[in-house]
């Protein structure tokens, strides 16, 4: 589904990604772990198309298409969804406005009929229950006055409505209490299918108790220094990152 080859990116001249190689196939869940400042969020933002980051080398293919040539909105239309680490508040724009515009823009891009108000509403209502959000949220402004947990649930709700092919969850577990974590994780798990894929960016393993990864990668200093299966996440939880970093240093 997505092939990332030798990806280098910088911000304000500072190199953050220093040659990322990663392939994610349909139906897979990949976890990207690593200590703070290793470049995890940057990778998520670069894939989503944030223009503040400059890609200096490498390529990203998404279902065979050169993703780096597309603006953020068209990447979303191709089926990429970023659940933000810090979802932004947008006063004056209701969740309905956001979702309706987003959904119809994506449908239009794919040559599908736009949904009318009734169809949209019934779809949205169905998806709300998935993350246990109440309907009055629809009329409220995007994330305005939401608690940390509500913001993260709202991200997953949007994901449920937009049905991406590849979802990237950027630190979706941070700031969540255990109940909210369970709700979010259940939502993500229910959305999983053999046709889509998920990249979970996190530095704790606790989310991975709920969203079980097929692969775990350790990102450090802009590179993936170790990959393994879900047992790697447990090992990291147990022993920290230092041993992986040392192991990688020895290899060089």
């Amino acid at each position, binding site marked *: 589904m997505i092939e990332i080859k030798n990806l280098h990116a910088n911000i304000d001249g500072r190199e953050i990604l220093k040659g990322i190689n990663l392939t994610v196939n349909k139906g897979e869940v990949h976890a990207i772990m690593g200590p703070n400042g290793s470049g995890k969020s940057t990778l998520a933002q670069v894939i*989503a*198309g*944030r*223009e503040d980051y400059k890609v200096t080398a490498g390529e990203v293919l998404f279902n065979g298409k050169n993703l780096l040539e597309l*603006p*953020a*909105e068209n990447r*979303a*239309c191709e089926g990429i*969804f*970023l659940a*933000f680490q810090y*979802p*932004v508040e*947008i*006063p*004056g*724009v209701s969740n309905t*406005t*956001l*979702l309706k*515009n*987003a*959904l119809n*823009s*994506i449908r239009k*891009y794919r040559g599908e009929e736009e949904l009318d108000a009734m169809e949209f509403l019934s779809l949205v209502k169905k998806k709300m229950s998935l993350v246990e959000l109440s309907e009055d949220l629809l009329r409220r*402004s*995007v994330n305005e006055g939401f608690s940390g947990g509500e913001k993260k649930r709202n991200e997953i709700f*949007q994901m449920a409505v*937009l049905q991406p092919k590849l979802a990237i969850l950027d630190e979706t577990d941070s700031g969540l209490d255990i109940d909210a974590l369970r709700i979010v994780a259940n939502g993500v798990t229910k959305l999983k299918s053999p046709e889509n894929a998920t990249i979970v960016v996190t530095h704790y393993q606790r989310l991975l108790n709920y969203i079980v990864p097929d692969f775990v990668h350790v990102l450090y200093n802009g590179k993936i220094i170790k990959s393994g299966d879900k047992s790697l996440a447990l090992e990291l939880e147990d022993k920290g990152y230092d041993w992986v970093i040392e192991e990688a240093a020895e290899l060089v």
Partner: protein
Amino acid sequence: MNSSVELKEQYLKQFQSFENTLNGEKELPMHQIRKDAIKKFSALNFPSVKDEEWKYTNINPLLGRNFRPADSIPEIDPQFINKYLFDKKEFITLVFINGYFSKEFSDIDALPKGLVIETICQAIKNHPDLVLRYFSKTTSSGNNIFSELNTAFANHGTFVNVEENAIIEKPIQILYVTKADDIFVSPRNLFLVNQNAQVKIIETYAGFGEKSYFTNQVTEFIVNDNAVVEHVRIQNEQLQAFHISSLSVDLEKSSNFSSYNINFGGSLVRNNVNTKFNGGFAECRLNGLYVAGGTQFVDNHTSIDHTKPNCLSNELYKGILNDTSRGVFNGKVFVRQDAQKTNAYQQNKNILLSNDAIVNTKPQLEIFADDVKCSHGATVGQLDKDQFFYLKARGIQEKEAKAILIYAFASDVVHSISMLQVRDHLEALLAKKLL
């Protein structure tokens, strides 16, 4: 040559011809007011950028034009009128074309009890005492060359008298539409809202046609004890038009005045809004919005004068400027020595959508009392980058994302308008202007 002097002479000459058309009316007391005004006009000079109040507003483009007074109702396609009108079943409707009252398009036959509506010239004839007690008497309605010019040519416009205790449910819409034919019009309104009365008034300014024109407009409001007023002003002139307006509001004890000053059109626009508290415990809300593009120039000068204690004023003006358009905001709030326990809040927020758009903003707070709560501020910025990216990351195309954010910024201003139809209309205009 000094075009300012030439233009003045031209208007003075035009006043003479205007006088000749008045015939018998010349003997009425109103005409003395006109003559006083033209005298004052003649003694004043057109402002230049050297005047503090016009520092950023160069009116040379207006001074260079040779407009003649409108003298008749032109042929008009009803669609130019109807597109600006709200549902006549739910609104009391007055239409003026080139300044002239149009019976054909208006509907003021079955007025609710306690409401008097007449054209201003009728009202001057029918009840001169009442009209002349207030006409040109509101604070700062005079002493401005454009207001004097309006008074001198005042013959068309609307007089509204809401009698004591009358609560008028139906909003009143007054549409001034002008054929762009190198003419000038001088709409003049006097709105008298008596004790405990309530009314909602919408003024719409629009035009049609290819040439230019000049709307020089004055509205005076007397809001008596306990009266409640909602006033919406929709300035949607042709893009080649000139528009200068003055809104003066006298607020008496415990009255409540909400203003929405919405600007879309015009090449050179200057709005003066002056409100004064003459009694305590009154409230005044001034909301403003200006959306400009191309080479449009929009200037809003507002003033709120707290002379009495325990009053509240809340002002929010927002601007969206694109291309090489320019905006000016000057908001004065005075809190006089006697005006203890005043609450006065003022904000001006602007979004510049291009590198060449400019706004000059000057919030001004002058406080002479010591027990008050006041704040003011101004911001000028671009769209929030994080919000923009968030919308795009959801698949919303750049153009729509931009529109959604601008729309959210602007709709805040019209949000609290109580009349749903008016709000919908403004939101549609906003969408049309922004998309």
